[in-house]
């Protein structure tokens, strides 16, 4: 077992275990922390794939930003000490079955498929290249998605403010 494989096994185990804990833990704050672990492990995977930039984004935006956001909203809406009720057996079984069926279906499909890599030499992935192609409007340029995502973010920002703002006519 090479170091790579070992690393992958560790990250894989972490991801799966903490994922399951995230969706089953009965304390909401713990769920959030478990989610954080999952996201950090994912960032580790990205490092393994040699995508440092993505891993950094993952850590800052996901692990840093979103999880903090979620934790804030938990603090706003829940009691920390509160424990969730146990989920109904029927619901668990059916959801579990659906999930397991999905996993089996996907994995069997993955195993049946042959993936073919291109023969072209790999490209160097550095910040400069990413930055250039992000603002490039020629071939292999991504300026359009970039602009779209900017507008989306702006819209989301405004929407979040508008929605969360206390309305005049809101009554329970």
């Amino acid at each position: 077992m090479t170091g790579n494989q070992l690393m992958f096994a560790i990250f894989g185990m972490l991801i799966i275990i903490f994922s399951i804990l995230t969706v089953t833990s009965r304390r909401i704050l713990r769920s959030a922390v478990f989610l954080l672990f999952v996201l950090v492990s994912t960032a580790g995977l990205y490092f393994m794939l040699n995508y440092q930039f993505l891993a950094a984004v993952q850590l800052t935006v996901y692990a840093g930003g979103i999880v903090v956001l979620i934790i804030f909203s938990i603090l706003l809406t829940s009691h920390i000490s509160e424990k969730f009720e146990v989920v109904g057996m029927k619901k668990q079984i059916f959801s579990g079955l659906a999930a397991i069926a999905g996993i089996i279906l996907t994995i069997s499909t993955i195993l049946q498929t042959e993936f073919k890599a291109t023969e072209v030499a790999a490209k160097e992935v550095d910040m400069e290249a990413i930055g250039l192609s992000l603002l490039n409007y020629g071939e292999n340029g991504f300026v359009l998605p970039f602009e779209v995502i900017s507008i989306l973010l702006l819209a989301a920002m405004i929407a979040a403010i508008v929605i969360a703002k206390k309305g005049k006519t809101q009554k329970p």
Partner: protein
Amino acid sequence: MNTGIPLEYFLILASVMFFVGIYGFLTRRNLITILMSVELVLNSVNINFLAFNKYLFPDQFQGQFFGLIIIAVAAAEAAVAIAIIINIYRHFTTINVEDVDQMKF
């Protein structure tokens, strides 16, 4: 290259994560935990994109950019979702998804 780790491993890992997220989405009652499940799902997809990019088309950027955009969308989505959740909380004083069932019949 990541010799010794076949592409399939990444994919299997991602799909397990995906369906764990789905499971969470289906079983959790708290809206915020549901949101967390969604984050899991998005994350698993992200892993797929990057793995494909790395293994199949190392000469291109598409996968990475998709990953980036998904992260951005996830951020936007989380922001809006949390705004909505807070609003719902104000309205119903609960964020239990089973109690928020006005949209029926």
